[in-house]
């Protein structure tokens, strides 16, 4: 079993931070204004590859020139940020992005830095990720102890230990299953008894699948994305894929959902410097334009339930044409064009518009999932 990025240990991160702080201190003591180089998120620094997603290529470096007033402020922010990470790591405490913002409200810090908006401190964290690198890759902020509010759940027969240190099975961790850790890199996976994992955009649909007992029937895991997945969810999906669990994604048929899928599959340009967030093996099983409009589409009967696309939906689809991970993927590109042409979108709730007796709904879901996963060479029992 191959484990790609198990991240760095706290001790390693602390060493990196101390190294950076020490270098800045020595530069200043030598009477030289520090200059800090990093690779920004410009398009020149990011490449898209179908089988890898977005990857950073370190093409065009940016420099923070400490002789300039604005840059000196950035350096001051960087130094302060790193010292806070250091202290939190040493104390074994995590912080949220909001926490980090409030750390700048300490009086003597506020007087110098004059931060008035959280977006400034968020940018500072992003910069820290880019400046502190190990083996040619950025250290994700989670390793500094900075976590955003975790989002997403996972249900299924899978045994793991998370940051709490407790061993648990994801099929007995509450009605939604396990609440995805904010640091999936540091979760230990002990046993996997599922043949595939299905990640559903909407929480209601995922709950229905769990309520109907599909995880047991089909030997699958069911994850709920809660809309656009957070960093933790994307990292978790990647962890499962690294354990050779087939990843299936079930989302709305809309331009926005194409984006959701493409971030799972390919990561995003902004976070290309963070490794372990893309899952190129992920498969989009539905809802597809072919489901509604194809000759043998499974959902042809409920084609009438499709809704008209709003102006913002149309605009989103137009912009999708310019996103490499969508326009360079034949499947996604074709769907996007089909929607642009028909100007209609479908939602996961469409299953309810069949009007079957509820007892038949389970069979409908099973049929749909089996057929669709088969198309992607994933056999469900």
């Amino acid at each position, binding site marked *: 079993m191959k484990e790609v990025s198990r991240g760095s240990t706290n001790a390693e991160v602390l060493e990196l931070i*101390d190294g950076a*702080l*020490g270098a*800045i*201190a020595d530069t*200043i*003591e*030598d*009477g*030289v*204004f520090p200059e800090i180089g990093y690779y920004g998120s410009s398009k020149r620094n990011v490449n898209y590859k179908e089988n890898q997603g977005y990857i950073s290529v370190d093409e065009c470096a940016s420099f923070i020139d400490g*002789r300039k*007033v604005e840059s*000196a*402020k950035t*350096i*001051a922010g960087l*130094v*302060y940020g*790193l*010292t806070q990470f*250091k*202290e939190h790591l040493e104390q074994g405490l995590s912080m949220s992005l909001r926490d980090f913002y409030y750390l700048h409200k300490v009086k*003597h*810090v506020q007087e*110098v*830095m004059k931060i008035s908006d959280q977006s400034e401190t968020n940018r500072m964290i992003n910069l820290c990720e880019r400046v502190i690198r190990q083996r040619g890759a950025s250290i994700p902020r989670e390793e500094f102890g900075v976590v955003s509010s975790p989002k997403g759940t996972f249900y299924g027969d899978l045994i793991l230990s998370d940051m709490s240190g407790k061993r648990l099975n994801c099929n007995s961790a509450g009605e939604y299953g396990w609440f995805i850790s904010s640091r999936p890199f540091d979760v230990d996976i002990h046993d996997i008894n599922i043949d595939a994992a299905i990640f559903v955009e909407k929480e209601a649909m995922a709950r229905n699948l769990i309520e109907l007992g599909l995880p047991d029937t089909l030997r699958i895991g069911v994850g709920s994305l809660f809309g656009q997945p957070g960093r933790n969810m994307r990292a978790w999906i990647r962890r499962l894929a690294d354990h050779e669990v087939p990843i299936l994604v079930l989302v709305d048929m809309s331009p926005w959902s194409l984006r959701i899928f493409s971030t799972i599959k390919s990561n995003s340009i902004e976070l290309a410097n963070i490794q372990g967030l893309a899952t190129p093996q992920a498969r989009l099983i539905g809802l597809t334009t072919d489901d509604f409009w194809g000759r043998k589409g499974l959902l042809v009967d409920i084609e009438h339930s499709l809704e008209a696309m709003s102006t913002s939906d149309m605009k989103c689809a137009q912009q999708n044409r310019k996103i490499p991970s969508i326009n360079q993927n034949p499947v996604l590109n074709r769907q996007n064009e089909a929607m642009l042409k028909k100007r209609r979108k479908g939602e996961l709730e469409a299953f309810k518009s069949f009007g079957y007796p509820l007892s038949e709904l389970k069979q409908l879901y099973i049929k749909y999932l089996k057929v669709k996963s088969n198309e992607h060479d994933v056999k469900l029992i």
Partner: protein
Amino acid sequence: MLTPKSYNSDITELSVSAWFYRNRTIAGFDNPARSLYVSIRELVENSLDACEDERTLPEVSVFLTSEDNETTDAFSTGPQIFGLVVKDNGKGMRKEDIPVLIGKMLTGTKFMLKQNRGTFGLGGSLALLYGQVTTQEPIEVVTGKQGEAFGHRIVMRLDIEANQPIILQEEMIRKAPHESGTMVSYKLQGDWIRSKKRIVDYFTQTAIIVPYATLIFETPDGNVLKYDRVIDSLPVSPKAMKPHPRGIDVELLKKMVSKTRTKNMKSFMNNSFQRIGKSIAQDFLAYSDIDPDRDPQTLSQNELVELMNAFESYSRFLPPSPKSLSPAGTEVLLAGVKRLSPEIVVFKQRSPNVYEGHPFIIETGIGYGGGLESGINIYRFANRIPLLYDEKSDVTYRVVRDLNLRNYGLRQEDPLAFVMHICSTKIPYKTVGKEYIGDVDIVRREIELGFKDCLREVGNNVRKRNRVHRQKKRESKLAEYYNFVAATLSSALKRSVTDSKLFGFDGGVSD
């Protein structure tokens, strides 16, 4: 007292002084407030002239005292009687000249073609006349010339009908030979409450344009305004000049012809006008078709008019000589404007130019920052007297209003003082009030160019100053950040980190 002499029941004749008294509003004596201000101003200017004529650094003291002691509520009262004493260290007067110079109208030293302060040449006398009419009190003059062991004290009244002084009392007084000067004291009706601001403004601005004078003014409120001299050099004094052919009219030409002792036109042209030499005289006479050997006395009225027209159209006259002018000079102006304590001052003097046959020189200056109030302040001077009122009608205001300050890196709300001094043998006043200068193209242009010249320099200075300021600000900001960085690093790395080498000092935040 003012009854005109009767010829018969219908026709009357006024004496000169009676006429002026009746029309005293022309010279500014229209109400008690303005009369008080004009009286002080006329007498102060006479005193300054008396000193400058002698090339003495002026010391002028003015004492204004209230004669009505019983009043308590100043606002409810109308005009009051004041005692006014004006004292200078000028050349003094000969005893026999006193009645003529002071007690008679339209006599004096100012009816020559040279720059002088006075506006009509009768202000001083009219001020005394006004005092006498409103209070019926006599006038006292004490004067003494340098090198004489005695001065004179004279008490007199003015006889308006006869335009003659009546001496009531006279005596010799002992004085030191080196002392000289004149002191005039009399009583007049005035309104201090309503003229206070004008009079104080007048002293403030006079102190700017005459920084080589010491001015003392004791107000009826008991306050003393004192401006000490800040520079010890006087401006070059003007010379009386013969008229320029472009600056005269037919009446003056007639008078010149009747008074000349020359026997032919060629020497008349040559001798009676400024800047006409033999060749220009000859050329001009050929141009205007007049026999050079003709006796000027024989010219007829029509021929004189034609001669005037020829003066107008002939193009080869040299411009009038600026020797009759006495510009303040940039040095004197710089010293004067120091009283406003600006941070940056620039003064420029334009070359002489000509307006209707009269030469004029424009001096412009701009002060910036320091003690100046924010916004644009305009100070106007004509022949070294301040112009205090009707600012918005003045050509200077219009020029300043139309300047685009942003071109020079300045803003409307910056603390700016615009100073304009025009000196000329004939100031282009617009109205009889003589408080503002008319919009004459050539004058306007000179003022505009002068201000623009100053603005360029002020703008550069301000830019330079701002650059230094910005640089300082940048350094202090950098120091602030690095001090913070050093302190943060010290506590995080648990070793002392200083940024002293970065700034070449011991780490403190510079201010």
